């Protein structure tokens, strides 16, 4: 972890505050999420308080602060999906897994991420779990879909 961070910082050696977002993106790409350690080191590198970095990062949906689960559920919140009820789908998944978007379940099996249009608008509302598309999802189907991934684990 340390060395990966150091490499990123090396690439942004004399970075100023406006490099914050690109640095956070690189870290997330490399490690899948922004750990506390990573945020603290970014703060030291750019001389910004961790509270500020956390504030900025939570402003954007793209950043997560926990590692992804074994099954990563991406819920499309693009316009087409929104019109066809993705908000209620998201809520159903959150209730089912007892976690919010951006979080990972305690057993590490599931995580949820909200994403912008994933280019499958014809199939809206769309879920993408571990690379598999689930089309025209309804609240009623959520149980079945989630359980099918849980069962694969056993």
């Amino acid at each position: 972890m340390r060395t990966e961070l150091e490499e990123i910082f090396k690439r942004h050696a004399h970075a100023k505050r406006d490099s914050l977002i690109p640095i956070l993106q690189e870290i997330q790409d490399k490690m899948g999420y922004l750990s506390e350690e990573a945020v603290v080191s970014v703060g030291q590198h750019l001389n910004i308080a961790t509270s500020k970095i956390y504030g900025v990062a939570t402003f954007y949906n793209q950043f997560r602060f926990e590692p992804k689960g074994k099954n990563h559920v991406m819920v499309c919140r693009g316009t087409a999906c929104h019109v066809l009820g993705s908000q209620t789908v998201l809520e159903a998944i959150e209730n089912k897994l007892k976690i919010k978007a951006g979080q990972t379940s305690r057993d590490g099996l599931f995580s949820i991420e909200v994403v912008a249009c994933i280019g499958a608008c014809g199939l809206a509302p769309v879920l993408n779990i571990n690379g598999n598309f689930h089309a025209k999802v309804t609240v009623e189907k959520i149980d079945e879909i989630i359980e099918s991934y849980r069962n694969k684990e056993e």
Partner: protein
Amino acid sequence: MNINIEVNNKLIQAKKGETILTALNREGIHVPTLCYMKDLMPTGACRMCVVEVEKKPNLITACSYPVEEGMKIKTNSPRVVHSRKTIIELLLSNHPDDCLYCERNGNCELQKLSEQYNIRERRISGKKNKYRVDQSSASIFRDPAKCILCGRCIRVCEEIEKVTAIDFVGRGSKTIINSAFNKGLNVSSCVNCGQCIMACPTGALHEISHIDRVEAALNNPEKMVVIQHAPSISVSIAEEFGLKPGADINGVMNAALRKIGFSKVFDTSFSADLTIMEESSELIHRITNNGVLPMFTSCCPGWIKYVEEFRPEFIKNLSTCKSPQQMLGAVIKSYYAEQEKINPENIFSVSIMPCTAKKFECSREEMTNNGIADIDAVLTTRELVKLIKAYGIDINNIEPELADNPLGTRSSAGKIFGNTGGVMEAALRTAYFKLTGEELINYKIDAVRGEESRKEAKIQIGKLEIGVAVVSGLAAADKLLTEIENGRKDIHFIEVMTCPGGCIAGGGQPITHDVKRIKSRIKSLYDIDKTDSIKASHQNPYIKEIYENYLGEPLSHKSHELLHTHYSKRDVLK
């Protein structure tokens, strides 16, 4: 340069470069504000201060918009009033309706605004978010449900204190104010000064109350409950009882505390004198023995935590003296307990402080002696006012009383500790005597008085010239640290207080944004200094007595055991 603007059909003069709000305020024209705070960067976030300007299509925020020649402003047009009303209604739409149970009932800016704009019903009903309160801190309680996101606490914490423990987290309707990773103030870099509480317009921030534990002790027949009050308390509560702001009601307060049931009333200004005896000796010792310089005062727990977290390389520069609160606590449970033949475990020791950080301080491991805490509970000035009211005590009809000796007599040097510069001035008076054997004839040291965030002076003591500096606000302190780091060597002794203006404007004081009140408190302390006959700590007869009977001399073994401590680097989420 002056320019002319027209406000509500009247011509007024404004200064180029200033904001509309500044110009209006000078003319006594009132515009309501929420997110604006004097001396801090305006953000224009709440839009409460909007005014209408001719030829501008949109309403303009007076707090952040500069005046322009010939501007024609309307501060109360129907459009303006309608807009302000809507903002208030929106703020109320997801606000918990529990003013009756709220800490700030009667002293809340949101309450005042809704009264002023005659809001009488809930027209807009918003979704109430569920929030977790943060009560992880030893000093500060945060309730996000009552937060209106004005951002004043964030800016004070960043701009005045350079701590930056909190920020806006999330976005849109889910935005809240929180520490990094929502982890709680206790693991954040928060130094507990409570300046955020002073800034907050609503009941979202207040102290962690110790009233319950004090009452429990008062009702416990096994406990002897004693209390001490800090130098600034007696000049800070008068207005809460309808008396003149800044009036010194020391004697009446002593009497009130006895009526509540405290068996002994001591004065923290006595131990401020004790601090001066120790601290001035430490300074002289460092100067004459090539010790680490400059030396920093250590009375302020906010400052101490800041150094431990952000500037640990300066820990060796901190005086090893405990703060007056902790010194008196230690002396009560040793010297006093032995004298009175009381088991220190049966003493419950309370202090009244203008400060929230003192609650944290009393819980520090370093602040114990053989496993017994020096201080058991800390009440803020605000909590004292509540206690007096709850016990139905009529401040206007009680006779003043003296505090209890041997820990109740002070010099006026100990009293001015409440003001920024006060500790310095008191220390110099005694250092002068110790180094020259003579009393300072002109006891008043003007160079260290005044409310500026930094004051510096060169003081001639006999053959020795001492460079001194006084700073308040941690941003100002940090700046000075950087200068020292970069090689400044002309300063020997530095007083630091976290709260701008000193403890007199501390985070535990009655909440007001009226500078006149703060000024009247400062003046009151200096007036006491003018009229009192004992003006230096070493002249206090009870200080002489405690050294003769118990401590020996300053920096003795006994003093070190009870009155000194040391600090170490602290890891927090910063």
